[in-house]
């Protein structure tokens, strides 16, 4: 089935393109929906009338809309998001500087969520309807309900202000990463734990598991070696979907811990009405999410032999 898989990959890639195009169109239209003069908005509040006029011509804002969008798309594809209205530096450079911090946080949190969520989910399923199961499910309920920024503040109070184990905010050392990563991982951990537990309980009822048990294999080996591999398939999807919630949560987590990532830059850009920066970051976030979903879909096919790529 090598060839059909290749074709599936290509088709799935082509399918992601219109979504990405749509994202750029949506962002383009949104900024033009703002009441007022887009040239003035993009130039920033401090710009003089001459500057605004120059920018209007430079950005082609005096041209018809479709032409404007074509130019916008061309420059975005070339990695040119314009200049920040506040700092006058290219938006792409600012994004580049912050990207690493956000990716470090997001990837660490995802890894944490997968490790902790899988373990908790397996424990809950193995000890179904016992105190262990209830404790995991209660913790998971807490995880999906707690406001991420409040959790961050509470952890900061306890571990940074009172116990002095870790720094309260900022970045630079691995110790700085601990609190933000744990905070951001809470929601995803809960989701992964619920999904793992559910999927594993379902798998444990299937015939092949009964066969394995009938062969006299211990329950631990049945779960780890037989059931878990099959139960993991839906978990893969959920981890991918989670990444979106994680990016949203990153905006709040970064603000809570003064973590110098894209999310915090986005919030300050919104406060300063720095539209070129807002445009750039929103497009980058959406693109990241679309790519992660694409990778998840491909992984899903790789993991699950039952799926036909037709």
């Amino acid at each position, binding site marked *: 089935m090598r060839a059909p898989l290749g074709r599936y990959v290509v088709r799935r890639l082509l399918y992601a393109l219109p979504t990405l195009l749509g994202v750029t169109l949506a962002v383009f239209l949104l900024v033009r*929906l703002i009441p007022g003069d887009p040239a003035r908005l993009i130039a920033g509040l401090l710009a003089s009338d001459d500057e605004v006029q120059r920018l209007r011509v430079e950005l082609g804002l005096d041209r018809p809309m479709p032409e404007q969008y074509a130019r916008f798309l061309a420059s975005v594809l070339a990695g040119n998001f314009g200049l920040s209205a506040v700092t006058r530096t290219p938006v792409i450079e600012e994004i580049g500087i912050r990207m690493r911090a956000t990716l470090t946080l997001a990837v660490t949190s995802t890894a944490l969520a997968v490790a902790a969520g899988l373990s908790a989910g397996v424990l809950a399923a193995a000890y179904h309807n016992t105190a262990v199961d209830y404790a995991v499910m209660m913790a998971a309920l807490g995880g999906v309900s707690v406001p991420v920024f409040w959790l961050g503040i509470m952890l900061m109070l306890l571990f940074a202000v009172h116990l002095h184990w870790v720094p309260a905010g900022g970045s630079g050392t691995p110790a700085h990463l601990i609190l933000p990563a744990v905070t951001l991982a809470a929601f995803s951990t809960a989701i992964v734990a619920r999904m793992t537990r*559910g999927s594993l309980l379902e798998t444990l009822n299937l015939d092949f598991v009964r066969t394995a048990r009938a062969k006299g294999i211990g329950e631990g080996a049945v779960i780890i070696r037989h059931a878990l591999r099959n139960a993991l398939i839906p978990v893969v999807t959920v981890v991918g979907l989670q990444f979106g919630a994680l990016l*949203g949560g990153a905006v709040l987590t970064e603000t809570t811990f003064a973590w110098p990532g894209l999310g915090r830059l986005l919030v300050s850009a919104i406060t300063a009405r720095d539209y070129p920066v807002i445009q750039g970051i929103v497009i980058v976030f959406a693109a990241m999410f679309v790519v992660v979903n694409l990778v998840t879909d491909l992984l899903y096919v790789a993991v699950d032999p039952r799926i036909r790529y037709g």
Partner: protein
Amino acid sequence: MSPSTRASDTDKGVRSTIPSAGRSAWDRLRRRRTAAAGLVVLGMLLASSLAAPLLMGDPDAVDFAAVLQSPSPAHPLGTDQLGRDLLTRVIYGGRISFLIGALAVLLALAAGIPVGVISGYAGGTVDLLVQRGVDLLLAFPGFLLALTLIAVLGVGVTNVVVSVAVAAIPVYVRLVRGATLVIREQTYIEAARALGAGDRAIILRHVLPNCLTPVIVQSTLQLGAAILTAAGLGFLGLGVRPPTPEWGTMLGEGQTYLLSYWFIATFPGLAIFLVVMAFNLVGDGLRDALDPRAGARG
């Protein structure tokens, strides 16, 4: 927060496939008890916010003689940097949060249900176009969509409601479209059509009522999610304008004083946590109670 519901969907499906009948009955009972607990918490919080003007004084009353006081009998949750009583503000904050949550969910329902039904019922090009639109909205990760809309619309209660609602619309469109696709193929629809019922009558009398159960369950969960999103915007200083007592905004302001005055940020956050958890408990319980078929799927 659709991933969470998706996850617990399977969760539930799984639970009732467990062979022993006694076990699953116990499971249901426990569920119902936690749902009841959620309902009680919710009722208390809702009642206290509704009765706030009767119970408490002015939430905006500034008292410079009593700034940043720790919790005491006079101020059970302490006071903030302007000497305002935090208990009063937290209780009044419930009014804003419940209001924003309810309005946002209603708005999302009003837009999402018709679009979802039409998309699922009409099929073809209409369905294709609507679904591409939904894909587009879903390409913006949840909270980020609301944040982007706030960036365009500006802050304030109305804009928070609109932003949170738009972010929730795709959830309803997907849900209702999915339900419609299933209902459309049922034999009773065929029977209604054979009896001469038009599309309009079929949609209003048969399709919509049968979509109701998943919509009610989803809306309960969505209320919690909407309150959480609105509070997040407030925390970033991009939600409801101060001095309106909104939980997220209060929390954001309280963070400045965190090192010496822990209570300012702690209590509003605890309130958000409780409300969202209560909605999640009730939502899960409702699903079990209203939708027995959800269990048969696994």
